[in-house]
C-alpha cells in the first residue's frame, strides 16, 4: 500500500487502524494509552508533507512506535525533573529558603548537561570495537555498511558491537 499524499495515508490508516491498535496495545500494555497514541497518529499524518511514501502501512507503524518512545522519554524526563526538584527543595527547606517551581526550564539545561556527561563517561568505558562502531554510527552518522567498511569488519560484526554498546549505555543512562 503506498501513500502518495495525506489522502493516501488517510486511506492506509483506515485500512490498518485495527492492526495498529492491536500493535499499540501490545506495545504499551495499556488500552487507554494505545487509543491516545492512535489518535495522535491520526492527527499527525495529516501534517505529513506530500511526497512519495513507499510503504504507507510501515510508515504509520513507525510513526506509532516513535510516538510511544516520545511518551516514554517524556515520562523519564519528568521523573528526573521531579527528583531534582525534590532534592533541591529538601536542600532549600533545610536552609530555610523558598521552594522553586519544578517547571523551571533552567533545570532542563542542567539535566541535559548531566546526561551528556554521563554519556561521555560511559563511552570512555566501552570496549574498543563497540566504542568505535558506536561513534562512527551514532555520532558521525555512518550507516552500518559504512561502519563495516571503515573498521574492516562485517555488517553483523558492526551490529554485535552496537548491541554491546547499547547494553552498556542502558546501565549508565537509565539508572
Amino acid at each position, binding site marked *: 500500500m503506498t501513500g502518495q499524499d495525506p489522502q493516501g495515508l488517510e486511506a492506509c490508516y483506515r485500512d490498518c487502524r485495527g492492526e495498529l491498535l492491536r500493535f499499540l496495545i501490545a506495545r504499551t500494555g495499556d488500552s487507554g494509552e494505545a487509543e491516545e497514541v492512535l489518535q495522535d497518529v491520526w492527527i499527525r499524518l495529516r501534517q505529513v508533507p506530500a511526497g512519495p511514501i513507499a510503504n504507507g502501512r510501515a510508515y504509520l507503524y513507525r510513526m506509532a512506535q516513535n510516538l510511544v518512545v516520545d511518551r516514554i522519554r517524556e515520562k523519564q524526563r519528568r521523573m528526573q525533573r521531579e527528583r531534582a526538584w525534590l532534592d533541591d527543595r529538601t536542600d532549600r527547606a533545610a536552609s530555610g529558603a523558598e521552594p522553586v517551581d519544578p517547571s523551571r526550564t533552567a533545570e532542563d539545561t542542567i539535566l541535559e548537561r548531566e546526561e551528556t556527561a554521563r554519556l561521555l563517561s560511559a563511552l570512555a568505558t566501552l570496549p574498543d570495537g563497540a566504542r568505535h562502531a558506536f561513534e562512527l554510527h551514532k555520532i558521525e552518522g555512518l550507516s552500518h555498511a559504512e561502519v563495516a567498511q571503515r573498521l574492516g569488519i562485517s555488517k553483523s560484526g558492526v*551490529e554485535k558491537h552496537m548491541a554491546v554498546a547499547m547494553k552498556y549505555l542502558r546501565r549508565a543512562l537509565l539508572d
Partner: protein
Amino acid sequence: MTVLKDIDVRLLDEALAWRAPLESDDADWDGYTLWLEADPRHREAFDAIALTERIVDDRAEDLRRLRAVEPVAVPRPAWPRRGLMFGAVAAAVALAVGIPAFWPRADTVYATGSGETRKLALGGGIAVELAPSTRLVARYGDPSSLELAQGDAYFVVAHDPGRPLSIKAGDYAVTDIGTTFGVSLSPQSLSVSVAEGAVSVVPQAGDPARVDAGQRLFAAKSTMRVGSIAPTDVGSWRQGRLVYDQVPLAVVVADISRYSGKAVTVDPAVRDRPFSGVLAIGDGKRMLAGLADLTGLPYEAEGGGLRLGAAAGR
C-alpha cells in the same frame, strides 16, 4: 531517571535484534506484534533499548560539538577532512554548572618538534618511534585507539588478537595489525609500509587493502596503490634516509618541509611528477639541494622559504 530494572540479557538481545530491522520498509510488524504479545517482559526490554537510543540521539549533537579540533600550527590539509579529529575533550560542560565529576579521560597527545624524534612504549605491547614534526594521539588515553594526526611513525607491535589495535590516519584506518610497519601521513597523501607481518588499510569508501611484508601502500586523492619496498627501507628515516618509489614531488617536498623545519613549496607544473630515489636527511638543510640534484630541477629562496621550480627554459 527510571529505576534500572534487572532485565534478562537474552531479552535485551532479542529487543536489539528487532530494533534495526523495524526501520526498513518491509519490516515484519506482525511478527514484532506477536513477539510483544508473547510476554510483557518483551515490551519492557524494548522500552529500555528504545529509551537508551532516544537519549543517545537527543545528546548526539552535544557530543559532536564537544569533539573540538585542537589548533595545530600546520598548513590545512588539501583533502576535505570528513573524519573526526580528536583533541582534548572540552571541559566546558561541567565548568559552567558545577556538576559532579563524570570526567571522560582526555586524549593523550605525543608530539615531536622539528628537530626531534621520540621512542615510546605505549603499553599493550605497542612500541612506536616518532619522526620529527609528528603528532600521535591516543584517544581517551587508550593506546589501542590511535590517530596519526601528522608525520611519520614506525610501529613494532606484539600481535595480540584479543586486543584489536587501530590507527586512524587522515581518511584511512590501519587495522588487523601485525608486527612491524611504518605510517607516514602528509596533507596530500598516506603511505603504509610493512617490514614484517601485515596490515589492512581501510578507506572511508571502498574496499580495504592488505599490505604484506615487503610492500608499501601509497594513497592519494582517494586512490590506493601497492608497490614493493625492501623491509630494511621501512621507517628508513630512523637511519637518516628517505626512500621514495614513484611518489609525487609535492609529497616529497612536504616531507622536506617537515624535516628541515623550513616551508618548501613546489612549482605547480611539476608537483605531480613522480620521483624515485633516496634522500639523505642529515641536519635537514641539504635535503632540497639533494632532491634538486636528483631531479635536475632548480630551486630558489621564496618568501621565508624555498621553492623547487620547473627546469629552466620551459
